């Protein structure tokens, strides 16, 4: 059989083709990864549902934002957005009494500043409810700023709790979850979450 010498294929245009594809992907795709502040909506109640049990006044921290984005704490005290985190921290971490579900006293809470327990503040982190009341005209930016401050307060408390119990911060545990899918790690995270459950209730906005 006669073997002919095959001519070499010209690869000079390969670069052009690759450039074309590259530019297509540059144009058609985005780099950003979406992220957000995760919240859960309450389940819709059937119309004949029994009214929810009344919460003790001291277990509810009421934060109201009006249409000018001013903040009002517990209906009386005006506050700045930068103060929200500390107010929430103090309120959640008060630990003045027994918790829900027979948890008993909060032995990991540190109370307010200097460890003082305020009798008029929350009993236990799992009873502490933060109620966020907004107006329809409230700007979304202010609304998110409050949500973020509350989220930061919970993250800080969870970090501390995880640090005490496992020697690593809560955020480190959550980050580990990306590579480590073990049940043990998941149990740890949910245990910390259980210590400081995020209970934020959004009241239907007022006004029109």
């Amino acid at each position: 059989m006669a073997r002919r010498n095959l001519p070499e294929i010209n690869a000079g245009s390969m670069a052009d083709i690759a450039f074309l594809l590259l530019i297509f992907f540059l144009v058609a795709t985005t780099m950003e990864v979406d992220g957000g502040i995760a919240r859960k909506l309450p389940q819709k109640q059937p119309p004949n549902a029994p009214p929810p049990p009344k919460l003790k006044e001291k277990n509810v921290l009421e934060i109201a934002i009006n249409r000018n984005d001013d903040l009002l704490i517990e209906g009386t005290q005006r506050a700045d957005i930068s103060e929200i985190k500390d107010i929430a921290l103090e309120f959640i971490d008060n630990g003045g009494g027994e918790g829900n579900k027979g948890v008993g006293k909060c032995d990991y809470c540190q109370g307010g500043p200097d460890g003082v327990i305020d009798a008029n503040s929350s009993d236990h982190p799992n009873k502490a409810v933060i109620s966020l009341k907004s107006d329809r005209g409230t700007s979304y930016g202010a609304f998110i700023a409050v949500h973020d401050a509350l989220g930061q307060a919970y993250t800080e408390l969870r970090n501390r709790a995880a640090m005490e119990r496992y020697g690593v911060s809560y955020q480190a545990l959550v980050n580990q979850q990306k590579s480590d899918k073990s049940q043990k790690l998941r149990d740890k995270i949910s245990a910390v979450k259980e210590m400081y459950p995020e209970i934020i209730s959004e009241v239907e906005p007022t006004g029109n």
Partner: protein
Amino acid sequence: MSKFKKQKKGLPAISTASLPDIVFMLLFFFMTVTTMRETDLKIKQPTLPHAHNVQKFEHKNLVSTVYIGKAIDGSDKGDFIQLNDKISRVGDVKDFIFMKREQLQEEEIPFMTTLFKADIESNVGTIADIKRELREIDALKISYAAINENDK
């Protein structure tokens, strides 16, 4: 003299044989790190708020995005809602979620998240209306889009 002439002549052409390899490498890099742009915005690009407590999504196909912002020409002061590729009203949110649900497996539905990409200037009322709709159809997981301050 003749020595100089010889040197001038002898410049070899730079080989471009490895150029495709380099470009392909770039191409694969971009293919892996980027995601497809899904929608064209019909409203003004919302300015997202900044926050510290941002969680990233692991499964992008479980996220349905609701855009809320101002009109593109700024003529109308009210908030506009964009679902998929068109400006919509609050009442369309249910259908939008139902449509998203159809594309997913049954067991994935409880993990679906609705992401609000809203402008910082928009009103809480608009979002509250959408949330009420979402509650009615049991789409309870929501997320407020924000730019992670910690990344900076």
